[in-house]
């Protein structure tokens, strides 16, 4: 039995009266790409700061490689944390950031870093504070991939990157991951874009972990049925409904946990059976808080 690379037990963080993360318990196994998904302000960044020992937990435990990350040089040295809000010293140019990375990360691959810098077209001699948002993100992505840390945590790593650059990131990450397997935890709200990369999915909503599941299982876990209002309503009766939309005499419903037999039955009743994308599923499962926000 191996110890999970990332673990949380009842992890909670309060800032004054606000609870940013509430009682999070989960584990991320070695080697794999895990998505941490959730809406803006749902607690993703705070959770990542707790996991890397940058914030102190109000209650519960965070563990990296089976040990507390707080002030633990042994586990932090094997961890690379890339975040959009990374601060750079005033005098730093891009080359200084890469130089620092080459000292700090034991598995740093300078040749790979050079390749990525060329591919993202990052100006090495420019001051960090003069970079565009996309260029700053590109520097983070280069460090994240070339560090080859046993655990790499990306917090919304693509801010300001255009669609082409984002796909370069996904491609290069997967390519290097194939040759040098490691554990990657990535927060994002571009769920559809990364859906195919993910092995495991954690969804956090309003500080609470609401989904902790294998990505493949999750993809098969919900189905959308469309058809005549009465037929849809009859079929949905007594089942767990994620979303419900109706327009005129037609209706669309998303249901959880339909077996193949049930899908065939729905089809036989003249309903369209469509698999649900990860994004639709997560929107369905986290929309509750959105409704409450609108109502209040």
């Amino acid at each position, binding site marked *: *039995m*191996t*110890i999970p*690379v990332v673990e949380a037990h009842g992890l909670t963080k309060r800032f004054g009266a606000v609870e940013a993360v509430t009682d999070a318990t989960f584990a991320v196994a*070695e080697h794999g790409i895990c998505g941490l998904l959730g809406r803006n302000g749902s607690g993703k960044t705070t959770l990542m*700061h707790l996991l890397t*020992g*940058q*914030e*102190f937990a109000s209650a519960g435990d965070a563990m990296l*490689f*089976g*040990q507390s990350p707080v*002030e*633990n*040089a*042994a*586990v*932090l*040295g*094997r*961890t*690379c*944390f890339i*975040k959009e*809000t*990374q*601060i*750079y*010293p*005033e*005098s*730093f*140019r891009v080359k*200084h950031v890469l*130089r*620092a*990375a080459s*000292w*700090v*990360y*034991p598995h740093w691959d300078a040749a790979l870093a050079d390749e990525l810098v060329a591919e993202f077209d990052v100006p090495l001699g420019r001051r960090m504070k003069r970079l565009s948002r996309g260029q700053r993100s590109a520097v983070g992505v280069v460090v994240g991939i070339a560090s080859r*840390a*046993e655990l790499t945590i990306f917090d919304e790593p693509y801010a300001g990157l255009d669609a082409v650059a984002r796909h370069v990131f996904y491609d290069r990450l997967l390519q290097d991951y194939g040759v040098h397997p490691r554990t990657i935890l990535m927060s994002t709200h571009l769920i559809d874009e990364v859906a195919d990369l993910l092995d495991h999915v954690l969804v956090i909503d309003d500080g609470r972990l609401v989904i902790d599941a294998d990505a493949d299982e999750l993809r098969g876990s919900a189905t959308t049925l469309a058809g005549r209002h009465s037929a849809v309503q009859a079929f949905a009766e007594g089942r767990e409904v994620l979303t419900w939309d109706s327009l005129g005499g037609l209706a669309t419903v998303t249901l959880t946990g339909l077996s193949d037999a049930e899908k065939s039955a729905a089809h036989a009743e003249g309903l369209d059976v469509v698999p649900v994308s990860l994004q639709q599923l997560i929107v369905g499962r986290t929309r509750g808080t959105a409704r409450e926000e609108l109502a209040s």
Partner: protein
Amino acid sequence: MTALVDTLPPVPLTKRWANVVRIHVANPWPTLVTPWLIFTAIFGLTYAIWRIVLMAAGPGGVDADAFQYNGGATWILFYMVVVAVQSMNQTFRFAMGFSSTRRDYYLGTAALFVGLSAFYAVGITVLAGVEDLTGGWGVGGEFFAPAFLADLPLAHVAYVYFATLLFMFFLGAAVGSVYVRWGATGMLVFWGAVAVLLVGTIWLVTSVEAWGSVGSFFTENSVPTIMTWSLTVSAVSALVGYALMRRATPRP
């Protein structure tokens, strides 16, 4: 069942501290190069003023001690306070994002401060030695060892610079760590407390009529002895900075 970390050798302590020092000087300009350029510029201007005064004074010349009092070298002290504050603020948050622990960061940074104090103390003292050998750059000027420093042996000059720089670095680190922990509110409370303490001390010293003893501390003790007392304050500042930074969080 073994923890994953046990299968890989940890990065040795000395390498972690060396990494922190290297991060500080990754761009060597602000800490190692720019100060010497500023020295060159201020010294050049001071020297030019000396020549102008000599020209204006004509054949009668100037008093022997005319060029012995100037504060042209004191800027380095305030420059290093700023370096120290920036270290606790920006560079700390950078290093935390680059997998450092608070402890490694602070100890590595403290080592850098001691190293920089020695580097500048020795550098300035060498220039003070040149100043002596050239009869004050040929014009009786004293820039690198002005005023009371001019009469001290060079070893004492080096010690005064070293201790004063250490004092500035660790004072800056302590003030910077208050800012990192409690932000602008922390600064207001801190400086408010400093003002109250200062006025309170003056009140106390005046009410017990002790100004004479305060004065004699500075006149009766040698300059190196007074500097040694400053090391105590520097050490306390260093400990305060360490205690505060151990619980600091690198918020953006």
